[in-house]
């Protein structure tokens, strides 16, 4: 212990908020550069498009962040999204009222999350394993249910929703706000949020302090499942079909957004605003690369490099302080 070393160190006051500001600055910088470099970036059309693109990953990233803060990981979210599009599509096509169809789909997400909690708490499986297992099997179940076909949703109102805007802002982005604000209050201003951090930091110490650790873990995965199912509903609305192979690789984008947003994969460090910004930074890069006619293959490489650079500098700053 370098006791004397750190005794005099000034605390990182509101470190999270500061980091959020740097991310925001990065996002704004990207937008300024792209507005100057291309004619089409700053158009209202493109901006709404970008917001739509980023929204779904942003919501996934919030759920993912809850899990990562407890020191876990949820690899299943992409598959849950795909599976949820199938559930939503089938229910709506079967004539179930849209709100009921949405509710049931969300409950399916909750059930998947509870199953993850069960696997981790009761069966003692590592989060990586149980969610990996769900990832592959959910896609399989979805394919069985649809016989490998896409289901077209025959409900225009349902599909209208994701295309429409409210006071000039795409509905999908409003959904980010709808999820983000309660998530923020939950994580930063509720007891349960504190417990997510404490379990991620030291589960044993938390348990001895009277924290219900199993319940906290159940909660994290349930919320992640819920967010993923919600994104599934949004995706079904946006593309108008149910298809279990949708959202391939979105779990990795969600994890990347979370990590870019300052979440530590070792647990106990994270926020809600960070991953949201992270998701829109990723969306901006993809959008900008399209406009600049950058080869789609390169986009993936750039995203990878960006993750390394941002997390490296974040780590440097933490160590430097």
């Amino acid at each position: 212990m370098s006791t004397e070393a750190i005794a005099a160190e000034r605390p990182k006051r509101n470190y999270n908020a500061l980091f959020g500001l740097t991310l925001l600055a990065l996002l704004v910088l990207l937008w300024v550069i792209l507005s100057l470099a291309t004619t089409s970036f700053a158009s209202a059309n493109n901006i709404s498009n970008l917001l739509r693109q980023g929204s779904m990953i942003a919501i996934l990233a919030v759920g993912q962040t809850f899990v990562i803060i407890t020191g876990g990981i949820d690899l299943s979210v992409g598959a849950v999204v795909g599976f949820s599009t199938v559930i939503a599509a089938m229910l709506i096509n079967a004539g179930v009222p849209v709100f009921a169809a949405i509710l049931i789909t969300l409950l399916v997400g909750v059930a998947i999350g509870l199953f993850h909690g069960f696997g981790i708490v009761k069966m003692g499986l590592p989060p990586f394993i149980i969610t990996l297992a769900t990832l592959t099997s959910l896609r399989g179940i979805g394919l069985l249910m649809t016989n490998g076909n896409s289901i077209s949703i025959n409900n225009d109102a349902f599909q209208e929703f994701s295309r429409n805007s409210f006071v000039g802002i795409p509905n999908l982005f409003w959904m980010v706000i709808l999820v983000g604000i309660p998530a923020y209050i939950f994580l930063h201003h509720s007891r349960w949020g504190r417990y997510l951090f404490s379990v991620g930091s030291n589960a044993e110490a938390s348990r001895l302090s009277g924290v219900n650790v199993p319940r906290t873990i159940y909660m994290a995965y349930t919320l992640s499942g819920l967010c993923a199912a919600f994104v599934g509903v949004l995706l079904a609305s946006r593309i108008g079909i149910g298809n279990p192979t949708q959202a391939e690789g979105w779990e990795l984008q969600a994890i990347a957004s979370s990590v870019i947003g300052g979440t530590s994969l070792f647990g106990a460090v994270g926020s809600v605003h960070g991953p949201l910004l992270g998701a829109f930074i990723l969306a901006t890069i993809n959008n900008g690369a399209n406009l600049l006619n950058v080869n789609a293959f390169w986009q993936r490489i750039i995203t990878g490099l960006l993750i390394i650079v941002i997390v490296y500098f974040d780590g440097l700053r933490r160590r430097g302080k």
Partner: protein
Amino acid sequence: MTSTAQELHPAPTLQPGRTILELNGLEKRYPGTHALKPVHLAFKAGEIHAIVGENGAGKSTLIKLLTGVMPRTSGEVIWEGKPAALATPHEAMALGINAVHQEVVLCRHLTVAANMFLGEEESRFGLLQQRTMVKDAQKIINGLGFDLPAHVVLGDLTIGQQQLIAAARATVRGTKFLIFDEPTAYLTRKEADQLFKLIRRLKGEGVTIIYISHRMEEVFELADRVSVLRDGTLVGTRNIAETNEPELVKLMINRSIEQIYHKEHFTPGATIVETRNLSGKGFENVSVTVRAGEIVGLYGLIGAGRSEFVTTLYGRHRKSAGQILWEGKEVQVNSEHDAIRLGMALAPESRRDQGLCLNLPVGMNLNLPIYKRISSNMLISGAKEKAEADRQIADLRIKTPTRNALASSLSGGNQQKIVIGKWLAHGAKLFIFDEPTVGVDVGTKAEIYRLFSALLSKGAGIILISSYLPEVYELADTLHVFRRGKLVATHGFRTADHEEILTQALAEKQEKQGGQT
């Protein structure tokens, strides 16, 4: 048996008494702190040189500079007559400077043998010679007089045994200068004796030993000379024969020794908890009563069943027989949650593993048991959270810049104050402290004992587990001695002497205690 060991760690060719390492104004500054003010000190080959001082006095800084973990700010280190940079741990090791740390830094999942040879594995044609390594490691261990198997996984050993392996490992690398940082913090008396034998033997072979400990009797038992650090300053070096404990303590803390074991006697109140013939894994037939305002001490060797008894009482393990009565009524404690709800609090033995969320702020650690109370419905009252944290930091006199500083940035003593202090706000009635002052300096110890008094005055009862006899002896109103899972003797406050209690704790073997010679 010694001949093989001798071959494996050839004695350094040094004449005793010659200066091996000299510090010339060694100094370390961190931004904002002067951790080590210029130190001038010469270590002689083959001496055991104790370094004492409170946590934060600069001992860890000194070790880190000597082992190349951190660069110095200024000053010179002269190794065998030549200036040494000591810029990397590798360089220090190449010179023959090695350290055995308080907390074992080895790979818990590898075997003892693999750990002993980590980084210097024996291999033939690129293949590990596992069997040979196990054999060689066993020879070394036997040669050192430790009764430990070399083929088992390190993590299966007790912390004390792991510590002995760490020490053994340091001796096989041509070490000429070996630093022990609080090596006995987690050792039983017997294990400590084995370690002392090893240390004396190394000394006989001309190895210079730096021995850092909070335990004065060990310093007097082992050391030739002792240096005292206080607030980063070397305040004195003495030949051990020419000094005594009160003088050293005074140099360390500017406070007399009577002030450390702060003991207030309260009239015991109602019975808080009573166990009747409680049995479980590792202990049987234990009947103990704790009343309000009293400290019940549990003394015994590690593995005597004390910790198993309290963890069962605390609901971690199932009891196999017997009863637990809480305030006169029989209760079932099936989980820690039940225990906490009844009003028990446990400060665990290993604070890093069980007691603290190191990478979270101090304030959050302090508030963890009471978030229910400072939130209404689901939402936390930010103002209450801040106020509670600040009040506790002030009450407990925790040295931290603010409540937002990470727990990992505090010194060990201050971390321990959090582990213990967070329960004060919770308002539990029965406090169980398992080895509360391991690795904690004298000054912090005194403050922790004061916390005990504060708890007692509020009508709480305390169960105090300690392997450090003076601690339970000076503090416990009732002292129970455990041996091999059984409660073998009970004493009142200072009604038996150390000798008698030690004998009861060891009993079956009337072996000589190294400490008493």
